[in-house]
């Protein structure tokens, strides 16, 4: 704060005004399209009346009845657990597979390297709706690809999307397929950022392939890991598109993810207040993951000397 007074008049503009002027357009859009709607959602979720809330200073009464209604309704509670399940089921395999793929692509593969990289990244550039349509066909009983394969193997078609026990897993498999390429890219970037000398030094010390992986590559890539984990978790939490195409939340609410239920509540049950309350719960979950990343893990590993190499 003291620097403010020590500066000559012209410098005020340069040091304080100019930066804010430069970020103003971005800031405006964030305020108008992110911060203001968030504020409104929290307001609406806490208001007793479900009437028009579009005026910021509409008279209102604070209540938690919408939250109570959500936690008393098994459909909503199940939806939260289904979402958490879906998030964990997709994130862990995705991150592990993409790490292995990245190691293989950057160190192991000899021929057609670009072709390999392209084919793993390919699912990412497809629109989510097309991916869902493709997989809907794959899972179709009788004549879908999955049914064909199980037929050749002499097994019974599991009809994954028809049964609540398997429907979520079917979506998980699809999501993993869709995301692996994307995270592989980050891991490849992380791997190539490891200084060549470090690996050479390790090799001179007699470290083999596995030891290099364990003692050099893994620790040096922690920042990438944290970033990828966060993005993957948020991604899992935010999945909704395939639900519209493939299952509509069924069978028996087995794939009723939070965003889908939120949309249903707002636009089909015509209950914006309850939907806002559900959105606020969702918001808390996402913020928890984000805070975990920014303040928790990131700080923990910043003290580690090695990670600086990557920054």
């Amino acid at each position, binding site marked *: 704060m003291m620097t403010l007074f020590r500066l000559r008049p012209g410098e005020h503009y340069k040091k304080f005004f100019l930066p804010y002027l430069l970020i103003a357009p971005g800031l405006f859009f964030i305020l108008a399209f992110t911060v203001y709607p968030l504020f409104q959602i929290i307001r609406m979720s806490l208001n007793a009346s479900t009437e028009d809330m579009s005026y910021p200073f509409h008279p209102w009464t604070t209540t938690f009845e919408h939250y109570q209604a959500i936690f008393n309704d098994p459909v909503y509670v199940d939806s939260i657990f289904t979402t958490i399940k879906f998030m964990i089921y997709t994130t862990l395999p995705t991150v592990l597979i993409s790490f292995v793929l990245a190691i293989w692509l950057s160190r192991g593969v000899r021929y057609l390297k670009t072709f390999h990289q392209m084919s793993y990244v390919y699912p990412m550039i497809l629109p989510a709706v097309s991916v869902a349509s493709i997989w809907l066909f794959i899972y179709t009983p009788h004549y879908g690809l999955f049914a064909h394969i199980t037929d050749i193997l002499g097994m019974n078609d599991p009809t994954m999307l028809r049964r609540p026990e398997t429907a979520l897993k079917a979506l998980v498999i699809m999501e993993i397929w869709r995301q692996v390429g994307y995270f592989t890219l980050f891991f490849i970037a992380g791997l190539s950022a490891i200084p060549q000398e470090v690996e050479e030094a390790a090799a001179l010390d007699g470290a083999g392939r596995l030891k290099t992986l364990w003692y050099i590559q893994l620790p040096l890539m922690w920042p990438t890991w944290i970033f990828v984990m966060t993005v993957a978790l948020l991604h899992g939490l935010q999945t909704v598109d395939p639900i519209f195409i493939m299952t*509509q939340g069924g069978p028996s609410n087995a794939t009723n993810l939070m965003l889908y239920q939120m949309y249903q509540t707002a636009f089909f049950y015509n209950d914006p207040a309850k939907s806002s309350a559900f959105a606020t719960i969702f918001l808390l979950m996402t913020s928890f993951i984000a805070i975990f990343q920014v303040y928790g893990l990131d700080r923990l590993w910043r003290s580690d000397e090695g990670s600086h190499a990557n920054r």
Partner: protein
Amino acid sequence: MKTIIKGGEKLKTIWTPFRTVFVLSLFLMVFVLSGCGQNTSPKENVTSSKQNDTASNSSTSTSQQTSEMKTTASPVQLTFYYPVGVTGPLSEIMQKMVQQFNDEHPNIQVKAVFTGSYNDNTAKIITSLKGGNPPDVVISLSQDLTMLLDLDAIQPFDELFASKDPALQFDESDFFPAFMLNSSRDGKIWGIPFQRSTPVMYYNKEAFKEANLDPQKPPETWDELVKMASQTMVKDKAGKVQRWGVEIPISGTSTWLFEALAIEAGKDIYNGNPAAIELDTPESKHAMQWLIDLSKKYKVMPEGVIDWSAASTDFTSGATTFLYHSPGSLSAIMKQAPFEVGVAFLPKDKQYGVPTGGGNLYIMKGIPEERRQAAWTFVQWMVAPDRAAQWSIDTGYVPVRKAAEQTKLWQDYIAGRPQAQIALEQLPYAQAELDTHKRSEVQKMVADAIQAVLSGSQSIDDAFNNAQKQIDQVLKPYQK
């Protein structure tokens, strides 16, 4: 070095005009985005340009548009929302129809807005109402009547019946009574049937012949259906099913086919009272028991929740002999199936019975008088006998009125495709479809209960009694 400098200069010469364009487009973007709040839909432009002085100030309408408005003695502008609920190029057909209307009526301009599926359509209507910017005329589910009334969004047609256009041959008593069940409430008519249907049963005549059954005699009762389904089933040597007997797809939040089963078992779950659902009756439990028996006991239907759209492909690819589906799929099924397709009534248990389905035309409340009259002309035109018949031929929907059925157009059509007549013949047995207060929520509870039983996670008694309690809770505020 020289070349690099040259390149830099070149870049500069490109950059300078580009920069201007860039800054301008940025400005434009901010303009458009900030205008979003007021001018979301084209209709708003139309209304603002009608008040002539604001039109010239309006930033979004170009000068060309404004001059056009002024020269053509300003026709009445209508916004019309329509969804597409079955497969086929229906949106194109509708756009052509509206174009024809506009050509025939120079003083009315209807802007047809395609809104997606029925669900998306309902969501868009609600959103536009909340935004204070509703359309003038909509096609929406006949099941949406209670919701639209609860939102105070529509107006009754009764007063408009006084001012009919004789050329359009509108007659409210000409519509099939079954279709009017979901159109009237408290003695008033709120919706005009437009694209309506009842579920029918498709069957594979080829499979009948293979099993030495007479393809002209489809099953008439539940028991016959089970028998014929198991006779026509095909298994390979390993015992794996190649062709199932029957598929009754009840997926998502749809309860349509279950309502049919409940009516057939003796009692519909919806009795016309928008504040009640009777799900825990012996009849509906019996219907559910039969449905689950089809896969568990008789083993003629695949287990689990069968997807609505996948089921019709199952049928055309020969993976099932019988299929319960909408007559709206008739054209697509006839086109895709490599075998002869039969269409029949849904088999009966105690009685024949189906719910109706599909969409009605509604006129929104609170629109100015001239738009109201224009909307009324448009509605009459849309259901004029020839047009109604043509729409049914193009889409597969059932003709909504007797005059349409009697047109030469329709008679010629069914001479070549008698299957199209079945849904019409079934109409005397049709009842209202589920339309309660908070319909989406209530319907989802019913669908959840059915799916819980189908997937084997709950018994019929548990699922249905629980759902009944939940539904009663939701509907309690509406009970008098």
